[in-house]
């Protein structure tokens, strides 16, 4: 649950939202509170001034009763908690609470503290300094105290009562205490509102993100995971349906592309294996069959010779001899099939071979009214190939297409072109040696039918052999003992144990240690000596650049091949034609193309048609040597 992207994303967004809303709320509540307080302050000062002014006359003539009356009237205002006047000595002279009258206030009291906090009392108090907020007792609501000093003036010391002297500055203080209860309630209300808003927005954000993540991330990712599982168990023709154009859509697309490529590779690999074993099988069968056939053939032909005077027997024996000879031809063709390994190659022009093939199949095209469209590039170079074998390839592919296309409306197109492909992932390493000139090639362990490069490997106390993939860049290495991923290994020659590591170089991908082995006459092969790393460099070959291939594409608008059969079509004895086909046609095609160091792949859409793609190296020696 907590490992899901959506959960992580929601938690992250919630925290961010919380932080933003929190800060905003704090600032806005703070500002609001400040604004309220300022308002109350202004209001309080005004009030204090008004009271002071309204009592001025009564003070001057010392009408104490009137002053008391005014204070008592003010007291009725609910927000006003108390109004007090105290003289310079701190004695409360008037108060809304009569019991306080006559009490002396300490200089540390809230009402006195502002002016008396310093040693020398402040004579003049600015308006903004006159207020302070405090609590009467710890659990009551906040209150604002406003003090208003009553300054000495001429009329005071000249008054008849002679209560004050000329040299006094401050005669007393008017102290009003206002309740902040309603403001505090306001502020609390807005705090609750903002908190509520925060919770609502976080929940909403969570739901919306959750929904979209589920729709645009979770589902496609789940599909991708499922697809990788399918691929992991070997179902390489599994395809993800395209959903969107975003990064995940692109990922799905490249995933499909990858599985397609993998599938092609696997087909080639399977075929290599199969053809090799089929070749061995055929050779074995031929050899085993030929010995008993020799017995049959010599004895029957011997009898044929001895029974010249017995025409009836001659007739029967002739059948035996004839049929045995036929068996001999079948075995011979089986052997020929097995020895596709050595095509007799001459300089050939693929276009000419195609033209020649067209003549051979022209009758079949006519019978079914099939249209053959040729798009042959005039500037393809001649290649070293067996023209008869290639002709066989085209005949087999054309015949299949003719069988597949609808009668009267069939279209087959064939095109040739020159393409350049990089050696990485294609070039084969035929010989590799250690610094002491020991060959590293291993015929015992073959990778896709090719002898591998054997090296002794040491890492973390373990010692064993690693067989490198002889195809540059493919990295299908064979480990004779288990190594763990990202482990560095020290490689050495299996014969003389001389190190194959190169101290002066580092892997371009991970910066780790590299091995460097000599390819006689062809420079050096470098590679990362970290298990799992796929970095290899063969400068000599890379410098030669891409190799030219002749690309041949054969398209038809036939019935197509179902996806589940697509990877079997190159298998020997696999046929979709039932009794009409031997099932050898396409495996022969595959064998021939493989022998020409070429590659063949197929794409098909049921009901729409099939496309065969063949790539033949212009210079097989370049690909092979």
């Amino acid at each position, binding site marked *: 649950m907590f490992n899901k992207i959506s959960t992580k994303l929601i938690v992250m967004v919630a925290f961010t939202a919380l932080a933003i809303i929190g800060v905003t709320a704090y600032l806005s509540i703070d500002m609001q509170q400040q604004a309220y307080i300022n308002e109350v302050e202004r209001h309080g000062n005004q009030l204090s001034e008004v009271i002071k002014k309204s009592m001025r006359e009564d003070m001057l003539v010392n009408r104490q009763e009137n002053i008391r009356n005014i204070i008592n009237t003010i007291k009725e205002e609910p927000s006003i908690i108390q109004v007090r006047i105290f003289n310079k000595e701190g004695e409360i002279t008037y108060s809304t609470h009569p019991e306080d009258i006559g009490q002396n206030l300490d200089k540390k009291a809230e009402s006195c503290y502002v002016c008396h906090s310093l040693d020398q009392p402040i004579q003049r108090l600015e308006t903004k300094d006159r207020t302070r907020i405090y609590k009467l007792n710890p659990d009551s609501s906040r209150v604002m105290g406003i003090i208003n000093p009553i300054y000495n003036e001429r009329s005071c010391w000249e008054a008849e009562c002679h209560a004050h002297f000329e040299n006094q500055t401050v005669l007393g203080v008017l102290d009003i205490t206002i309740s902040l209860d309603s403001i505090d309630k306001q502020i609390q209300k807005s705090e609750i509102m903002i908190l509520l808003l925060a919770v609502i927005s976080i929940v909403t954000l969570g739901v919306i993100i959750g929904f979209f993540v589920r729709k645009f991330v979770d589902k496609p990712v789940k599909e991708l995971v499922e697809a990788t599982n399918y691929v992991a168990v070997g179902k390489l023709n599994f395809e993800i349906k395209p959903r969107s154009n975003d990064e995940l859509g692109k990922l799905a697309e490249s995933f499909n592309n990858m599985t397609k490529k993998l599938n092609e590779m696997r087909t080639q690999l399977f075929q290599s294996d199969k053809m090799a074993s089929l070749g061995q099988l055929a*050779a074995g069968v*031929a*050899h*085993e*069959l*030929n*010995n*008993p*056939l*020799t*017995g*049959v*053939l*010599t*004895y029957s*032909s*011997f009898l*044929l*010779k*001895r029974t010249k005077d017995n025409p009836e027997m001659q007739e029967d024996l002739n059948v035996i*001899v004839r049929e*045995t*000879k036929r068996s*001999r031809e079948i075995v*011979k063709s089986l*052997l020929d099939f097995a*020895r596709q390994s*050595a095509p*007799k*190659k*001459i300089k050939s022009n693929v276009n000419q071979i195609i033209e020649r093939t067209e003549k051979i199949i022209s009758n079949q095209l006519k019978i079914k009214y099939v249209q053959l469209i040729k798009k042959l590039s005039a500037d393809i170079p001649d290649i070293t190939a067996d*023209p*008869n074998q290639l002709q066989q390839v085209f005949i087999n592919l054309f015949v299949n297409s003719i069988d597949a296309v609808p009668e009267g409306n069939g279209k087959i197109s064939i095109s040739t072109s020159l393409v350049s492909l990089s050696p990485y992932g294609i070039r084969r390493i035929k010989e590799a040696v250690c610094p002491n000139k020991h060959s590293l090639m291993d015929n015992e362990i073959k990778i896709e039918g090719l002898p591998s490069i054997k090296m002794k490997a040491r890492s973390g106390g373990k010692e064993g052999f690693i067989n490198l993939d002889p195809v540059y860049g493919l990295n299908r290495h064979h480990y004779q003992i288990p190594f763990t991923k990202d482990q560095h290994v020290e490689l050495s020659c299996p014969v003389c144990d001389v190190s194959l590591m190169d101290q002066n170089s580092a892997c371009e991908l991970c910066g780790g240690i590299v091995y460097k082995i000599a390819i006689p006459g062809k420079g050096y092969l470098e590679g990362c000596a970290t298990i799992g790393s796929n970095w290899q460099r063969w400068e000599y070959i890379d410098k030669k650049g891409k190799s030219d291939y002749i690309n041949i594409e054969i398209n038809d608008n036939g019935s197509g091949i179902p996806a589940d059969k697509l990877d079997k079509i190159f298998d020997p004895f696999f046929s979709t034609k039932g009794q009409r086909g031997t099932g050898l046609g396409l495996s022969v095609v595959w064998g021939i193309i493989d022998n020409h160091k070429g590659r063949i792949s197929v794409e098909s859409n049921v009901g729409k048609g099939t496309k065969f793609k063949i790539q033949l190296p212009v210079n097989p020696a370049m690909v092979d040597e």
Partner: protein
Amino acid sequence: MKKSTDILIIDDEQVIIDSVIKAARFDNLAVDSAMNAAEGIKLFKNNEYKLILCDVMMPDKSGFEVLDEIHKLDINTPFVITTGYSTIENAVKALQNGSMEFLPKPFTFDELSSCFHRAFRYGEILKKMSLSVERSYNSSIDFIPCPANYYRLGLYSWINLESEGTVAAGITDLYFRVTNPVREITFLNPDDSITQGSVFLTIITDDELTHNLLAPVSGKIISVNPKLNESVSLIEKDPYFEGWIYKVIPAELNYELNNLSQCSSDRI
């Protein structure tokens, strides 16, 4: 004194030995047999044979190793390699290594029988030749070897590299010395492709036997000697010049020359 027998057959398959014995007995020939290479080698070390027939795949040694053994012992007996694994590679390899012929299994009675006779005649020629060398006189020329600048595959087919890049191919005089006169020849056609070691000519001799001859090179036939249409016997009268058979555009000449012997090395 060594015991002299007509034929030694070395093969690990009893039915092959039986077949050879059957065919030999029909021609009143004596046969020794060995079921493995070691036994065979022991036999031809101690006895004289007119022909040694040897299988390729045997439990202890291959037929090619037995052939090497013969060369080491300097035994002059015609040696014929036979195998069930009858590929053209094996055929070329056998001829290149000095096997007189390559006899692919399964063979017919006639094929076996004609092989015996060619071998016996070749054996006689070899004997005469060594005698004439010993006594240092030229008794009589038994066959005309191919010209020094020619190449041959085995004993019977030759090629001559021509300046235009084509090669001429034909049959050696020796071949006609070890078979009966030619009655009929079946040619391939221009534009046909041939492969080194595969059949490129079929000859029927007047004793009703069919002989398959193996192509010395691979390539494409561009012409068949038109003069042979007028008189087939030209092939026997002048086998190296007027009696050429095919002009061929070679496919892999440089590679295939390794499988051929230079006729100049035949001079004594």
